[in-house]
């Protein structure tokens, strides 16, 4: 009805990407639904950040394999987002009177959902993406945005100079007002990299989205089109510097690293943080059982596991079985995996529900590598079977079951 409440700020979460750089890990799920950190999915981080920042209306834009994401988000209850007013809504593309079109770019995805946003009549809109691990208080960013009187505020993180050219870089004046934006510059003028977190005054953004839609040459992308056009028009755009842990997990290597960071007390990403919990949909598994032969070192193990082997520097997701005599090190084992007796798993990511037979060797052997480096990460796909005695070398990607060799 007409007297529904106006919201100060709502969030729009771009979760559309297939995430092809994650290879077989995204064969069955969209990138934001990839498991992370022992019991989470990547998307739990931006959603929990929103909830902890007091944002209770979130639209999730998706068009690639939304089924698992849909089932995971459900009615939003795990994040306290099962609301009568607001809450979390999955927004796929849809047909208008004439025809439907898929989302052409990040800006077009928001454009196609103007009607959804207007239902909340927000003053500000927060644009997020679903592929970063970080804990951030968006309310503080909004306070900054309001205080600066900005039209758009972009969260940035100071990166080492040599890495800056991998990012979108914000060139700012002394007041952090942005005067230039360069996408992956060869010679960066600044080390302030965009985190892909934007706050816009909604009326302003809406006008740019509508204008951008009529521009046939536009790719309808925030970074490539909207931000440059706003800069060109001399809108008030500010950088907001974020100082905490932030990691893009768009590649196998970075996904592995970000998981390992959780086991490293030196890295400032503590998930056991009661006032800033990361919420996730919990299964209904009993507590883990640790058997008589287990050896556990510097590892994180979740509910429903049955561990009787050796686990070292590894992240073990719910419902994993590691049998007697098996060894898992420097690895990530996703939900429901079984690792058979005598198998050795090192520097490997094993996707959900896969069965590793007996005496299998996955990943790095005993190579000697220069200090500070590690062997290439192997990836074993979802819901497959690796037969007894199989050997998979470091850096391999296995998407199909490997059957037992015929006896010779």
């Amino acid at each position, binding site marked *: 009805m007409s007297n529904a409440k106006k919201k100060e700020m709502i969030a729009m979460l771009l979760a559309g990407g297939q995430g092809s750089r994650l290879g077989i890990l995204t064969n069955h799920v969209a990138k934001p639904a990839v498991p992370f950190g022992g019991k989470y999915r990547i998307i739990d981080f931006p959603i929990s950040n929103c909830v902890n920042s007091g944002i209770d209306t979130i639209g999730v834009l998706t068009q690639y394999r939304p089924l698992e994401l849909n089932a995971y988000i459900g009615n939003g209850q795990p994040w306290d987002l099962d609301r009568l007013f607001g809450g979390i809504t999955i927004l796929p593309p849809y047909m208008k009177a004439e025809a439907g079109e898929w989302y052409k770019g990040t800006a077009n995805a928001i454009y196609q959902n103007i009607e959804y946003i207007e239902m909340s009549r927000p003053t500000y809109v927060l644009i997020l993406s679903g592929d970063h691990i970080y804990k951030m208080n968006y309310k503080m960013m909004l306070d900054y945005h309001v205080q600066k009187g900005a039209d758009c505020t972009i969260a940035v993180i100071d990166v080492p100079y040599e890495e800056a050219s991998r990012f979108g870089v914000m060139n700012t004046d002394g007041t952090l007002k942005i005067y230039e934006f360069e996408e992956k510059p060869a010679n960066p003028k600044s080390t302030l990299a965009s985190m892909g977190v934007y706050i816009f005054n909604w009326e302003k953004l809406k006008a740019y989205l509508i204008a951008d839609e009529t521009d046939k040459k536009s790719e309808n992308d925030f970074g490539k089109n909207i931000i440059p056009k706003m800069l060109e028009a001399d809108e008030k755009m500010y950088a907001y510097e974020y100082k905490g842990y932030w990691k893009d997990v768009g590649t196998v290597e970075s996904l592995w690293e970000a998981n390992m960071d959780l086991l490293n007390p030196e890295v400032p990403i503590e998930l*056991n943080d009661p006032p800033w919990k990361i919420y996730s949909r919990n299964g209904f598994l*009993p507590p883990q*059982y640790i058997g008589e032969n287990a050896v556990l070192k510097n590892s994180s193990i979740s509910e429903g596991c049955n561990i009787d082997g050796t686990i070292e520097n590894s992240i073990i997701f719910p419902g994993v079985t590691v049998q007697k005599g098996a060894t898992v090190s420097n690895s990530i084992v996703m939900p429901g995996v079984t690792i058979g007796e005598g198998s050795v798993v090192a520097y490997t990511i094993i996707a959900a529900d896969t069965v590793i037979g007996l005496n299998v060797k996955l990943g790095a052997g005993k190579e000697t590598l220069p200090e500070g480096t590690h062997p290439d990460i192997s990836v074993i796909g979802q819901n497959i079977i690796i037969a007894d005695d199989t050997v998979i070398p470091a850096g391999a990607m296995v998407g199909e079951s490997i059957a037992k060799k015929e006896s010779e």
Partner: protein
Amino acid sequence: MSMKVLGIVFSYADRENLRELTKIRTLSSVPFGGKYRIIDFILSNFVNSGIQEVSIITRNNYHSLIDHLGSGKEWDLTRKIGGLRILSPFSNPGGTDNGTYLGTIDALSKNMHSIKRSLAEYVVITGSSFICSIDYDEIIRSHIDRQADITAVYARQRPDFELPDGIPLLRMDDQERVNELCYFNDDCDPNTTTFSLGMFVLRKSLLESLVADSIAYGRYDFYRDIIQRLSNQLNIRGYEYRKNYFEISSVSGYMKENMRLLKEDVRRQTFEMPVYTKVKDSVPAQYGAGSKVSNSIISDGCRIEGTVINSILSRGVVVGKGAVVQNSIVMQNTEIMRNVSLNYVILDKDVIVRESRQLVGHETYPVVIEKKSII
């Protein structure tokens, strides 16, 4: 389940001596199996059997139960039609009584205003002393097939289970028709006993009239005044439950029954169907470089730097470096500091055991440390 069924839970028990464990909580909110409470198993059985309307009869100390259940969301019992209802002894409309019940029938009678409003056709009544994984759908089907008036669930002696004194025994003929009720004592032969699991199925309309009749004659005990007294007038049938059960009525029994979860087949039977509990959003358990854990159940949110052997840890327990926890049950958020040594101890919630302290109980008499103690 297509039949509409109301679950009724007695959240307390008269026949119970759990010492410090029920000083501050009612029986059904006693922790069990690491992260669970007894009520979780009861509600999960209902939900897994398709029963979506549950009334819980409380007597005293039910604050922690209300707290644990909240709106019932975690058990999917926040329903518009049916759902979870907690009946507190003082909520009777216009009631001025002092909130004690003269017996189970009296408790049902004093809550009949609520039970009557349910549209359910059948009721399943259960106590809180037994934990099991049971399919009520199947029992109701057998109840209907055998045209029973009341179906009473029973079990047989387990080799490793000593029947507690005073447990009601059901004697049946070869058609499982109940014809006698007696109470276990030293004279009974434990090998031939068939004892009640405290669960009954009957039509709601029959329950209503049985309760009304009994109250009119000043009869208050369900076992004595309905099962026993009416066993030759009603068709009361036994239904044998054959899987694993846990019985909770004494501290040493509590310890033993918990420890049985360390056996794989017991775990499998207990968790064959999902068991729901309050979600705490804890992080996964963290094991430090010096940890040593063997034959133990560990819950989310634990941080283990020391040694844990043959023990059950609830959520958020911290075990410091050099500490050794053996044969013990440790409840939520309890902190065991460095070099502590524990053997046969039950630590309640939020306990702190300071550096190098030692606590040793015995299997037959475990030491129980009250909630929020600092040792």
